[in-house]
């Protein structure tokens, strides 16, 4: 049975193809269209999935959209009428936005793919999140929590999932919290207040939080009240997101927290104003963590299960995930590699397969690599056309050469195998560098990523030595598999892992099992043999404002436009001439370690 899952029209559109119960391809539209956060109907992604599996649209048994557009329209209409007359300005825009295209998804899918309307199915937004979190996790029975800004009506849901090997699957929802009461909207409101882009820059708030103190927690608690049943409500007097598209927060919000940040001015953490913004970020982060932990703790007490599957945009908050693991009572927390809306494409397709069609459960590969693959010979061809020296190596030789490059302080663009599905670069489209010095972090920020200096970089470490460098609690390695948890760097290693240690002494670490990415694992070991610290800085292979690279040509273009020294795709290594003369840091590191 061939089932295509689609998510589109809000942010991060994507397509995923499930064949006989197993995903065969999943990709975000932005990786192909090259527009970051592309929300358009994912025609390129669909084509890529179908091409990968070698099937035609008429061979699809079902096409599943990740939410119910009419239910969403119902919410938009109801909220606009409830807020009337304050919503009169936003109402025509909202109607035009919805009625122009978004509500007619059945027809739009039919018209693009040529499949009959009866084959087009819909799941609920949070059902898709729940399925993406539970059905891809290696557990047979788990509590499920989903939380994001808003789906149709739901903003947070809790439930339970059970699957029997080769048998039926059930996903039950116990309760939900409905719009406008939303933890995601609370966080997004602060994202807007702090001068960042809503639905895109929430991770910057998390990064900024590390620089502040939660001194404004009491003020944030005025915005969100806990209810006796364990849920919460927002005090809507402080918000405007439910009445207008222009601004998320109200004048009362400004009275409480002070004037908002001008997005065009940099945050100077040495000034009182800059520190106030960092304190705001730290305070909302603290309240978000506490609320999620309490909801998760209540769910654990109710289900008494050891495993929690957590999906939705809020599951990208690694600090909150680590606290849920530590404080909720769950032994393991599973966060999929794409917990946000893009991941709903895979969730919707799996939900349709297991629940709608009732197909038997299948174990799924536990990795995030569902996209197109790279070919080293294509990189060699491109580089030679430009007169660059491209060397093609056997695997062992290449790994040794790259380990030498990294130890010499060179920055490596690393492309191998299939593209990751989700927002994190997990070792197949990564920029790798030595993680030891602050200079490396600053160089990456200044010369390659062109981004705010307060944003941290992530490390990757082999699973067998992870506990030596990072303070990972029991169950934490699972959370760190897809870089979904933030854990402390051990105090004694912080001075030697400066580039990946955040200001609060933590890191969003990726713990790598050899089976998930054998070449990267071998590279880490080889690097460890040279420097005595088998940890690398791993950041996404893209420039600011661009999506992560997909094909060799995009990697090569990025390599040319910034100061990456070495580019690797498959077995091909390309090096910039100037980089060959870079200062060797190997001896310095060896000295330091000794």
């Amino acid at each position, binding site marked *: 049975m061939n089932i295509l899952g689609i998510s589109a029209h809000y942010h991060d559109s994507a397509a995923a193809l499930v064949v006989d119960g197993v995903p065969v391809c999943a990709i975000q539209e932005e990786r192909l269209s090259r527009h970051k956060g592309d929300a358009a109907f994912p025609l390129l992604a669909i084509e890529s999935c179908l091409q990968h599996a070698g099937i035609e649209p008429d061979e699809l048994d079902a096409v599943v959209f990740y939410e119910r557009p009419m239910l969403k329209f119902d919410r938009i*209409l109801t909220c606009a009428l409830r807020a009337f007359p304050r919503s009169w300005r936003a109402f025509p825009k909202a109607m035009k936005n919805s009625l*122009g295209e978004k*509500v*007619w998804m059945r027809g739009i899918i*039919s018209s693009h793919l040529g499949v009959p309307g009866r084959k087009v199915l819909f799941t609920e937004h949070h059902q898709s999140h729940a399925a993406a979190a539970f059905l891809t996790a290696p557990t047979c029975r788990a509590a499920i929590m989903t939380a994001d800004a808003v789906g149709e009506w739901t903003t947070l849901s809790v439930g339970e999932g059970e699957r029997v090997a080769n048998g039926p699957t059930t996903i039950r929802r116990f309760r939900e919290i409905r719009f406008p009461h939303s933890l995601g909207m609370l966080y997004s409101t602060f994202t807007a207040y702090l001068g960042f882009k809503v639905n895109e820059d929430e991770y910057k708030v998390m990064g900024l939080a590390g620089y502040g103190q939660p001194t404004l927690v009491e003020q944030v608690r005025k915005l969100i009240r806990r209810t006796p049943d364990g849920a919460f409500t927002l005090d809507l007097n402080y918000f405007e997101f439910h009445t207008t598209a222009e601004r998320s927060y109200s004048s009362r919000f400004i009275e409480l927290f002070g004037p908002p940040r001008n997005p065009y001015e940099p945050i100077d953490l040495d000034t009182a104003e800059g520190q106030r913004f960092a304190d705001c970020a730290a305070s909302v982060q603290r309240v978000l963590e506490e609320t999620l932990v309490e909801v998760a703790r209540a769910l654990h007490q109710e289900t008494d299960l050891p495993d929690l599957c957590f999906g939705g945009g809020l599951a990208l908050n690694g600090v909150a995930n680590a606290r849920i693991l530590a404080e909720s009572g769950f032994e393991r927390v599973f966060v999929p590699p794409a917990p946000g809306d893009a991941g709903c494409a895979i969730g919707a397709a799996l939900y349709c397969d297991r629940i709608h069609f009732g197909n038997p459960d299948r174990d799924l590969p536990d990795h995030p690599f569902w996209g197109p693959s790279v070919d080293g010979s294509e990189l060699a061809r491109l580089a030679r056309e430009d007169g660059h020296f491209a060397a093609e190596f056997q695997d062992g030789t290449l790994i040794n050469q790259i380990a030498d490059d990294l130890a010499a302080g060179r920055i490596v663009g690393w492309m191998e195998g299939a593209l990751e599905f989700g927002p994190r670069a997990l070792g197949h489209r990564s920029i790798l560098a030595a993680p030891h010095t602050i200079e490396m972090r600053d160089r990456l920020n200044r010369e390659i990523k062109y981004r705010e200096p307060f944003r941290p970089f992530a490390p990757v470490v082999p699973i067998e030595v992870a506990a030596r460098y990072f303070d990972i609690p029991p169950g934490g390695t699972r959370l760190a598999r897809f870089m979904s948890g933030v854990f402390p760097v051990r105090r004694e290693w912080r001075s030697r892992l400066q580039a990946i240690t955040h200001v609060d002494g933590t890191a969003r670490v990726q713990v790598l099992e050899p089976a998930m990415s054998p070449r990267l694992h071998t590279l880490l070991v080889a690097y460890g043999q040279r420097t005595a610290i088998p940890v690398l800085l791993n950041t996404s292979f893209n420039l600011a404002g661009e999506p992560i690279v997909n094909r060799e040509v995009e990697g090569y273009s990025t390599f040319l436009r910034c100061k990456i020294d070495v580019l690797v795709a498959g077995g091909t290594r390309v090096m910039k001439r100037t980089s060959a003369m870079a200062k060797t840091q190997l001896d310095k590191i060896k000295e330091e370690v000794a």
Partner: protein
Amino acid sequence: MIKTRGRTRRGLIVFGSTFGSMAQLARGLWQSDSDKRWLTPLAVFLCITGLLLTLATAVEALAPFIYSIW
């Protein structure tokens, strides 16, 4: 390979599917627990408006006639 269809053809396919979607919305509102039956006529009216606008965008020859309604 996905066959490329003309804008008009796609517009007409979307138009053809809208009645089912509208019926689904109306049924949902009519049967809702939260007593939103009163919303049904407004929702259907807005959907028909959207439908006409979709048709006007897809079949440009009809656009002057449709826009003249307003």
